[in-house]
């Protein structure tokens, strides 16, 4: 496969990446020798039947999981050899991750949840407030700043999670079934929000099994049994 801009280093570069999970006495090949390049600014859907390894692939790209073999270069940097401290830093600065189940901390307000990555990064308090509020307004939830997750609707919670993912302004945004827990209307809102961020230059990867959602993207990868079986750019 040829990259669209061959002169630039791909943002994501996977080569022969494999991951196995033990299921009973057998090993399940969640990812089987994956080769994949994704360039900055792309908008990619990862689809496939359940158990095909699409979430595992996204977790690998998000540095939430480690491959058994093969390699992953992020912005040209080999990630396998990175010490834990460095991996944490890459997650914090380069990657925004959006989960199907939102994963907000229930005791923290919307603004506090969003400010968490800024807090972890050790930014001054005033800066945390300013950038947190900015991200909150970007997802259209300024008035809900002090509300707890359980006071927000599902769509609002996912928008808070998106604000948390983008508050560090990472180049790469990863979303694992971001609309899976939402009704259709909120789902569309969330997708339009993500597409807006892609338009501003963030690379966007979405794992989904919704064909309508996949059709909106500019590149569709299909996984079956841990292998990429099709890579389409309509």
């Amino acid at each position: 496969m040829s990259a669209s801009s061959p002169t630039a280093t791909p943002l994501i570069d996977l080569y022969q990446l494999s991951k196995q999970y033990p299921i009973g006495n057998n090993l399940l090949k969640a990812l089987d020798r994956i080769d994949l390049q994704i360039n900055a600014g792309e908008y990619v859907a990862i689809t496939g039947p359940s158990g095909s390894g699409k979430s595992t692939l996204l977790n690998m790209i998000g540095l939430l999981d480690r491959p058994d073999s093969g390699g992953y270069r992020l912005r040209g940097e080999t990630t396998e050899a990175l010490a834990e401290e460095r991996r944490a830093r890459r997650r914090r600065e380069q990657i925004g991750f959006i989960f199907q189940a939102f994963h907000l901390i229930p005791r923290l307000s919307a603004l506090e949840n969003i400010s968490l990555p800024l807090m972890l990064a050790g930014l001054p308090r005033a800066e945390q407030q300013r950038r947190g509020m900015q991200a909150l307004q970007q997802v259209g939830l300024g008035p809900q700043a002090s509300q707890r997750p359980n006071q927000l609707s599902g769509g609002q919670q996912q928008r808070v999670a998106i604000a948390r993912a983008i508050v560090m302004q990472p180049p790469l945004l990863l979303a694992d079934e971001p609309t899976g827990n939402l009704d259709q209307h909120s789902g569309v809102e969330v997708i339009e929000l993500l597409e807006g961020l892609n338009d501003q230059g963030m690379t966007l990867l979405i794992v989904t099994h919704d064909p309508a959602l996949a059709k909106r993207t500019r590149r569709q990868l299909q996984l079956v049994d841990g292998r990429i079986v099709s890579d389409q750019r309509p």
Partner: protein
Amino acid sequence: MTLIDQLRFNTQVLVRQRWRTALLLLTISLGVASVVVLTSVGEGARRYVAGEFSALGQQILIVLPGKTETRGGAPPLYGTSPRDLTLEDANALARLGSIGRVAPIIAGTARVSHGNIAREVITLGTTPDFFPVRNLTIGLGQPLPASAVDSASPTLVLGAKLKQQLFGNSNPLNQWLRVGERRFRVVGVLEERGESLGLDMRDMAIIPIRSAEQLFDSAGLFRILLELKQLDQLALAKQQILERIRLRHDGEDDVTLISQDSMLHSFDNVLRTLTASVGAIAAISLLVAGILIMNISLISVSQRQREIGLLKALGAPANLVRALFVNEALLLTGSGALLGTAAGELAVALALRLLPGFPFSAPLWAELAAILMAMGSGLLFSWWPASRAARLDPVLAMRGASGGQQ
């Protein structure tokens, strides 16, 4: 993450989950308070016994008739000797420069009766000095009259329990009763007081020493209580007493001297055992408290394994995650330990009010050990699961399991 932000993160956990925090604090303080209370009971028992043995008073010497070899057992309460110790011996000792008050004692069992009620009790014949020497206080009436030093006046002081048995609630003063075949007039009643040196002073009658000589038809003294004029003259006094006795007993010092020192020394084993018991009680209650705190720490951290995974996914390094949970455990166990110590002390103060005779007191070392144990256990068993979860890749920690399944 700045320290202030870490502290803010910790206090948010504790303040915004009030019930969880309250229950954890309750458990930790319960563990610490139980150590304080249990050791205070053990230490109280030890002090009670030590107090009983030192009730004799430091300046008191006891002279027993007969010489007994020191065999390392209990002190000889009854000496054996062919030669009696007499009132004349006592008077001779009273003239020694180092000796103050002297209380010779003749003891025997006699039938004490009033009306148709009779009781067989220990009857002591002694002098008025006996009361101050033994720290006995009169609850009603007078002690033996001054004339009782050397004359057989028919006067008698009753123990509190004996008075109750013979007279009930009516006034016994100036009533006449019989001791053996003789009649005595009640002049006083001892104040209620516990057992002392194995003698139950509540169940006793006290009469002048000359009367007792006649009653028991014997001039042999049971013992002599001596009060030293000065504390530091113990050795000198012992030497003078033995010399004086040798002079009066044809060159033989056939008496045994007992001081508080030697008493306490003989009961050392008892006290040592009691001290060891306090230590054992403390160790067991500390262990229980430690395990209690271990469990709640393990549970409260494992409950938040997903949160640890999320923090890692958001870019927190493992060290930071560990620090967050260790700080939280320190805050929690520290305040729990302080609360528990305060609650334990309060319980001890309350017990002291309810049972004033028993010296409850939690030893300082036990309190410090309880606080250290609480914080140590909380620290270790928060650090350990937090550390394990922080080592996992975020995706595993977020799944809430230590093993991975897709």
